[in-house]
């Protein structure tokens, strides 16, 4: 009976884990207070477009641009450029919209103090830089050198393997019955 209890306990714990994972619902999202700073809202629109230039990102960017146009503080924001960017996005011209939005806040960004604390210091919001382009000649050399190291390491680790495996030692020290049998254990040794 005793060995079955741990199995039962494990099964119960697993069931609880799975039920918790599937039953719990996300905590209600806290929307947070929207910024009233027009230039930051324009930057947020740029952030959405940089992160996702697809339909979802465009919708989110449009929301931010609407918020920017309605913001109390539009200091340093060229409102016409923001409106032109909205028009460009409606036509699906994401690149043009990004260019217009970046230009719309040039004056605001020029007045930024050097970043302290948690300030981002961001002026231009670039597109993501992908990790991988086409392999170059240098990449080929690095790949070749790495493959040589990998092969050499594997060969040497095999060459330097221990003389005896744990199974060999167990057979020699404990006997054919293995560690579960106290009779097979050498005298004076603990399990």
């Amino acid at each position, binding site marked *: 009976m005793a060995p079955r209890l*741990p199995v039962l*306990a*494990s099964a119960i*714990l*697993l069931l609880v*884990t*799975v039920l918790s994972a599937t039953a*719990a*619902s*996300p905590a209600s*999202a*806290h929307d*947070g*207070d*929207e910024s009233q700073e027009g230039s930051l809202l324009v930057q*947020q629109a740029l952030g959405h477009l940089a*992160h*996702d230039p697809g339909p979802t990102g465009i919708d989110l960017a449009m929301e931010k641009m609407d918020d920017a146009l309605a913001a109390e503080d539009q200091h340093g924001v060229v409102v016409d450029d923001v409106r032109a960017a909205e028009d460009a996005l409606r036509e699906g011209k994401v690149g043009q919209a990004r260019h217009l939005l970046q230009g719309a806040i040039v004056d605001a960004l020029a007045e930024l103090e050097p*970043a*302290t*604390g*948690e*300030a*981002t*210091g*961001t*002026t231009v*919001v*670039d597109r*993501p*830089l992908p*990790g991988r382009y086409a*392999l170059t000649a*240098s*990449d080929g050399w*690095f*790949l070749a050198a*790495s*493959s*040589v*190291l*990998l092969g*050499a*390491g*594997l060969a040497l*680790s095999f*060459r*330097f393997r221990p*003389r*005896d495996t*744990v199974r060999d*030692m*167990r057979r020699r*020290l404990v006997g054919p019955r293995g*560690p579960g049998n106290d009779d097979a*254990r*050498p005298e004076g*040794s*603990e*399990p």
Partner: protein
Amino acid sequence: MATIKPTRRSGARDRPTRTRRAVDAIDERLGIKALDYPVPEHANNLAWTLGGVTAAAFGLLLVTGVLLAQFYNPVPEDANQSLRDMVTDVWGMGFIRALHFWAAQAMYVTALLHLLRVFLTGSYKRPREANWLIGVAMLGLLTLALFTGTVLKWDQEGFEALEHNLEIAQLLGGAGIWFAADFADRVPILVRLYGAHVVIIPGLLVGLMTLHGLLVKRHGISPHPSLPTDATGAQAPAEEPTEPFTHHIRRLGAFGLALTGGLGVLAVLLPPAIGPQPVAGLEITKPPWNFWWMFTLENWFGLSGILWGGGALFLALAALPFVDRNPERLWRRRPVAMALGLAVLLTLTALTILMAFTETTQHLEM
């Protein structure tokens, strides 16, 4: 049948080889032969060398990190751009950065595998409890290194990681003061995290690793649970074959070579991207996979879920040697420990997998 005896030139003597003479000369000055002490043979298989493999990954991180530091500018206005310039305009730095990224992943994985092995073989039990605690502390530092490293990219993902950190610091009150953005009002927090990533955390890791290794030397490698032990139950028996510690280092060197090569292949074929510069007030990215289990807790319980979940895990790890009083080391004879360990592992795995299917949700107070 006549026996053939080897002949010798008259007057010839047995002369030590050039290698032997070199080793003797180095030993006379550095005492390297002290490393020739006997170590139970089971210590040389891969599962029992994972700690050393983790240290090898750390060594790679140190070397590649020094190179990255030559070209990275930790000032917020330029951090992201300096990274872009480094990987596109400086020969070899794209590879070095990718190698650094993959070495960090490797260190995390091998550290967890090492922890798992130590848990499965009961190697944390008396008299090795202190060394277990040092290991848990190093795991915590490694997690912090991963966190600070992701922030240093200073892209949207890194910035959102920082924002989470700042809000958790607020939850901690006075205890979170170092993590508060206004702790040093003239120094951007990015610069302080850079200092933590390149000096404080690696420095602490080097110190703890040294202590960790010295304690392994002091206590001896723990006995294999399926082999007999000596009368104390804490050491391998005299009957178990031994090899010199230099053989352990030699095999570890081979593993390190293979690790470097494997990570180099990954660095060429799967280099990490660099995200757009950060914008405050957005929460649109997911954290690196290492933190997904925490963020599923955040989705369920809010920001404090990260704090309580992480805290509970590390508290449980630290308490393990003092709560588990079962003297057995073989896994079959430790049903409660195995059941609980499996439950924790499955829970963390489930929480991690769930994050892959979860949309990003606003949690931060913007």
